């Protein structure tokens, strides 16, 4: 092979290798970016999943209301646009504490909560829950 051809071969080889290396680098960066995105996405998806389970699941909300009803049956249940109001009257200390603890620990979306002492050992609760 002549010197001229050798130079051409060397230049072409160099170019081809540089191109291939560039392609590899861009592929690697794309891979890294996707990996990073996936980690962020997984984290966000997990957070959303937990939050959705707690506040976005209607079935779960209904189940919680039923639990509350089992603690103390509401004397009145009124449906409003976007919410439902439950009145729990004549609650003794024990029932009141139990009901409030359940509300506190549940994932139901409270719009308004009113607790009123009626007599020394009696209280009433008005709970407005978002639909």
């Amino acid at each position, binding site marked *: 092979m002549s010197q001229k051809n*050798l130079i051409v071969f060397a230049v072409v080889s160099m170019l081809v290798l540089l191109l291939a290396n560039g392609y590899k680098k861009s592929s690697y960066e794309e*891979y890294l970016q996707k990996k990073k995105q996936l980690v962020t*996405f997984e984290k966000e998806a997990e957070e959303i999943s937990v939050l959705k389970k707690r506040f976005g699941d209607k079935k779960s909300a209904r189940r919680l209301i039923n639990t509350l009803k089992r603690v103390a049956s509401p004397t009145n249940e009124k449906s409003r646009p976007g919410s439902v109001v439950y009145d729990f009257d004549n609650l003794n200390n024990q029932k009141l504490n139990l009901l409030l603890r359940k509300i506190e620990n549940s994932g139901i979306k409270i719009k308004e*909560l009113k607790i009123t002492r009626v007599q020394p050992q009696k209280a009433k609760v008005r709970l407005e829950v978002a639909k």
Partner: protein
Amino acid sequence: MKNLFQENKDILFLHQKMQPRKKGRYSVILSPQFYWVKKVQLPVKSTAQAKKLAQSVFEGNLPDGDYSYEVNKVGGEFIIIAYDKENLSQLINDYFIDEAKVDAIYFSQYEFSDLDACCAIDSDSSLVNMGGLLIQIPRNCTDPKIRIEDLTQNRKLSRHKIKLGTFEEEAIDKKTFIFTASAVALIFSALVLESIGYKKEAAKIEEQKSRMIQKLDLPATSMQLKSIKNNLYKTYKKQKKLRDELYLFSKIPLKQDEYIRNIELNEKGALIEIKVKDARREKEIRSSLSKKYKIVQSDLKDDILTIKISS
């Protein structure tokens, strides 16, 4: 690659009476004057084996020198050419001077093996085929029908060329070139394969993401995802605050005969009414609540302390 970058070159029959060339590129066909040829039968089959025996075939017949051999099998016989590289090198240097260059050197034995008539080389000599061997003889013995220029014109040269390093300006030999080219090809393949690997991994990640979106019933775009997350966080914060307020109110230290009369909690804020024993208690209760929340209103009327906090 060679053909792409090389200039046009002429085919030239080189004989002793040729005028030296000063310009141009040439493919040179050597006259039989410049090499020795023999047609022999050997007890071997391949040209490679015959090449090993070439030296012994010419033993005692050649002048002193360092000879190389070219072997070609024709029928059951071998045509063996012996040439002295150094002499040829000198010859080329003598006949191609200044800017004239030689790209390759061929033997007339191989290039004109189909010659079936007497061919005039110049006014004194001819080229003839004698039983398969091409030889140069005086012209007065023959009656040439063709001229050497007719033979070289547009001739397709054979692959039997010889390499005399300096003439062809060989920068690297074939083996080194093949080795280098293989190394380049190997590195190129490795880089491409690596890239494909990364691309595949990236595609797998995308698939994983899609599966997760499907499984968790999430939106496909990150914008939608962010919006859902923000809404859920907003709800979470509001609900947490409501529950924190309820917890805080339930932990207010009350004295004997004191009680909470009313609690109202909503997204805008909270209100608590406490039956207190005396006016001094207002300060105590206010200070316990103000650690965590901003008190916007506080009244004490008929032993009922009303405190309003904002969200």
